[in-house]
């Protein structure tokens, strides 16, 4: 704690303490400090065609908070934020992106995302069972951490056989409500082709199911263990039709899933790279170039085909390295726009002419509130067997099991992980959330008992202005504007509360502000 605090105070003296005027909007800066890249060229062409202007560049304060939340699902430490704000070099943004892509939270946060899409939950209605959930989550997290090329990731999932307790990716074929060839085909199309099979003609659906017609399951003597295998023993050659209409005869004894994986991950496959490139874009820019990102079909065309083609090409040329795609997008001006759009055109949002404002993921918000301190969400799972006890210091984004009961996470839109649809996760405000944030004992305890805030009060030794600046830096990763500073400083007097209560109320107000609760 101490070195961090010291750093804040030093920084405040050096940068925030003088009378330098702060820009009118804390969300924008006047001019770009980064060059435009290939992404921007594609976006700009589409915007120019419609006469829509880019939003202004986002400020450094907005950028550091945004990129932390988007890339690792966590808030920056105040000392980190203040050092970043003070750094005059233009390359600091790109360097921050690199640092975050290598952060351990990156693996946790993106494993969370993949566990949503792959429906990783112990119990109803997926029933992976607790041991299998831990194993599968661990494998997914490792794949993300080591940046396993995406085509290999898909291939390992598609072709795995073995015990759910021992061969992690074999759980891919168990994580569906409906363990039939048709149910598996639906999951495969949704996950790797971004396509909802319900919109396909029946013969095409049946053709896809043929590839999974030999997937079989059997139990063992161990409770809840299940073996996934390809039943090749009795099989004759299998005639298959690929989704693009090509046909093949799979010799007896061969696993048709391997044949399918070969077809799917071939560089010229029209679905595979397109689906993931579009997904990654939607994760960072709030909506797909094809929207929704898992509803790709002929009558739902991309809003910017050149952009999607560019991302696809980059991904394939870089051996399906997803971090390459992240880097490309995060370092673009498109991503680094302000949330305030410059054009009133209704198409400006769909064509990416500003950064999309959206509520934090439930797990990220839980962690952000825990990070403020004072109290923590405690998770446990009484699903047998074994019961899962989660250490107090575990971050919410690192939870493996979607079956873990948590009213907070449910209210704030955690996906139930039943269908694998991206839209399962809700980012909209609701009444229950607002009541909880404004007035619950849980939020009260976090602020009231926050060691961060108490230490800040001690370290600033009664200097109200420094204290307010410190609270802003801690909770919003930026310094207050002159107007905000004035309002916060005079609050104690107007509300007739003492200094401690005034600090609590300031922290409460910032935690309840849209700026804290929404990615922006």
């Amino acid at each position, binding site marked *: 704690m101490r070195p961090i605090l010291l750093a804040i105070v030093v920084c405040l003296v050096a940068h925030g303490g003088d009378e330098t005027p702060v820009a009118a909007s804390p969300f924008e800066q006047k001019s770009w400090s980064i060059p435009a890249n290939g992404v921007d060229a594609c976006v700009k062409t589409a915007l120019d065609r419609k006469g829509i202007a880019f939003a202004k560049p986002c400020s450094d304060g907005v950028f550091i908070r945004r990129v932390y939340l988007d890339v690792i699902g966590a808030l920056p430490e105040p000392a980190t934020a203040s050092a970043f704000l003070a750094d005059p070099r233009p390359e600091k943004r790109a360097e921050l992106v690199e640092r975050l892509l290598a952060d351990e939270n990156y693996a946790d946060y993106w494993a969370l995302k993949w566990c949503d899409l792959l429906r990783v939950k112990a119990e109803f209605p997926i029933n992976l069972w607790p041991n299998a959930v831990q194993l599968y989550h661990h494998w997914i997290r490792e794949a993300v951490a080591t940046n396993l090329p995406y085509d290999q990731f898909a291939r390992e999932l598609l072709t795995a056989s073995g015990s759910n307790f021992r061969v992690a990716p074999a759980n891919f074929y168990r994580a569906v409500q409906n363990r039939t060839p048709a149910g598996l085909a639906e999951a495969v199309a949704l996950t790797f082709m971004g396509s909802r099979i319900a919109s396909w003609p029946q013969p095409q659906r049946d053709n896809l199911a043929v590839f999974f017609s030999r997937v079989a399951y059997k139990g063992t003597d161990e409770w809840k263990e299940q073996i996934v295998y390809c039943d090749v023993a009795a099989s004759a050659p299998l005639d298959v039709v690929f989704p693009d209409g090509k046909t093949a005869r799979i010799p007896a004894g061969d696993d048709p899933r391997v044949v399918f994986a070969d077809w799917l991950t071939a560089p010229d496959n029209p679905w595979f790279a397109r689906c993931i490139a579009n997904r990654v874009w939607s994760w960072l820019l709030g909506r797909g170039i094809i929207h929704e990102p898992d509803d790709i079909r002929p009558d739902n065309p991309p809003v910017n085909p050149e952009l999607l083609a560019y991302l696809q090409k980059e991904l394939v040329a870089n051996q399906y390295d997803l971090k390459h795609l992240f880097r490309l997008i995060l370092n673009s001006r498109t991503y680094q726009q302000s949330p305030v759009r410059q054009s009133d055109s209704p198409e400006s949002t769909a064509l990416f002419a500003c950064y999309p404002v959206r509520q934090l993921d439930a797990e990220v918000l839980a962690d952000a509130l825990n990070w403020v301190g004072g109290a923590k969400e405690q998770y446990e799972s009484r699903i047998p067997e074994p019961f899962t006890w989660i250490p107090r210091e575990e971050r919410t984004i690192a939870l493996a099991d979607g079956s873990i009961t948590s009213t907070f996470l449910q209210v704030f839109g955690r996906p139930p992980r039943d269908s694998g649809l991206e839209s399962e996760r809700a980012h909209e405000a609701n009444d229950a959330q607002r009541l909880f944030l404004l*007035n619950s004992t*849980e939020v009260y305890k976090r602020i009231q008992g926050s060691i961060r805030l108490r230490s800040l009060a001690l370290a600033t030794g009664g200097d109200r202005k420094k204290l307010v600046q410190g609270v802003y830096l801690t909770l919003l990763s930026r310094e207050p504007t002159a107007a905000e500073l004035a309002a916060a400083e005079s609050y104690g007097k107007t509300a007739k509360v003492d200094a401690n209560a005034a600090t609590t109320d300031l922290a409460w107000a910032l935690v309840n502000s849209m700026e804290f609760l929404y990615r922006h």
Partner: protein
Amino acid sequence: MNQKPNERFFPRRSVLKGILAGTAGLTLTDLAKAFAQPAAKPNAKSVIQIWMWGGPAQTETFDPKPDAGNNYCGPLRQPIDTNVPGIQIGQLLPRLAQNADKYTIIRSMTHGNNGHETAAYIVQTGHRPGGRLLFPALGAIVAKFRGYEAGYNSLIPPYVVLTQSQGRFDEAGFLGTRYKPFVTGGDPNATRFAVEGVVSASITEERQKSRRDLLHSLDSLRQALPDHPATQQLVGCEDKAYEMILGDAGKIFDLSTEDSQLRQRYGRTSFGQSCLMARRLVEAGVPYVTINYGGWDTHKQHFEAMRRMLPQLDAGMATLLEDLAERGLLDTTVVWWGGEFGRGPRIQWEAPWNGGRSHYGKCFSTVLAGGGFQGGKVIGASDATGENVAERPVYPPDVLGSICERMGIDPDAPFPNPAGMDLTVMPSGQEFGEGGGRLKEIM
């Protein structure tokens, strides 16, 4: 089964009222019409679901088997008469026995599943799991058709759970987040029922207001994006939240205004006071309240647990029925008692169970009262040991569909869903087996 004699001749209470009114100006033709087409009963307005999470034993509650021998009935082998001749219930439920005229016991519930989550899903959605959709529980269906789509605009959400979430199962199913229940948290038996978010432990009203002003002056992003849909949604929710925090709506949770003798009658337990709270909520027009009453998964030392818990159930539920009836609310409030399954009729005396009962979905009991369902009846029967349904099987969708009908929700109407499938609000019970059907006997 044993219909009350007067109802054979006067099938509807409303008709009786009609006859009495006849002297005050009804014509003969009106009367004839009334007999020819009995006026439909008014719809029920609310449901109180007493959810016996874990699976309560039918043997010790509503389907005693005193003649089945020690391996089936154990020490609690003296069921008691009720105020309805011919109906007996468990000996630890004397006050419910005095209210048997208010409810109907279904002794032939069956779905055959013995897993908590799966059975809880089946009993509350009417569907077996599998397929492409996850179906909503009855509470979410009521919240949709009798709540949001019926112009319900109270500050209190239409689907409330007292006090903890059921968990492990998504009640809203494919209907989505909006239809999830509002979970109160807190303890209605505490001095102050601190409903999370509504009743603050320590912030005065004046300070609430000054904090709100501070929030509004400092929320710069909201000011920078005044027309953004996210801002407008947030502001809408916030206005409602403050009406609840600062206005009168939140006062509904203040149980201290209730008569202390009545509170005693309900029992000073979390369950008893939850029953009282449920009555207050339906009185205020909330269409669906679940009392999530856990602790019934009595694998071990079952009889000790029954002696401890059944008196709480008895006081809370009996007082709820009496209190609703006294206030004229029982006619419009369905009270639905039951768990995901019952418990094994054959007792496990051996270690480690030491007199326990296992999960049992093959034959168990459910109770329905009020809301236009007739009381004082028994539907179906189990066999001599309670191991099998002996007559008139009742499947989960039969119960749910019947409650829908009483609530004025057509269970056979098309049910729009994200998969675009051809569905009705509630399925027929056919996928479960033969001989079921909605509970016309008591409707």
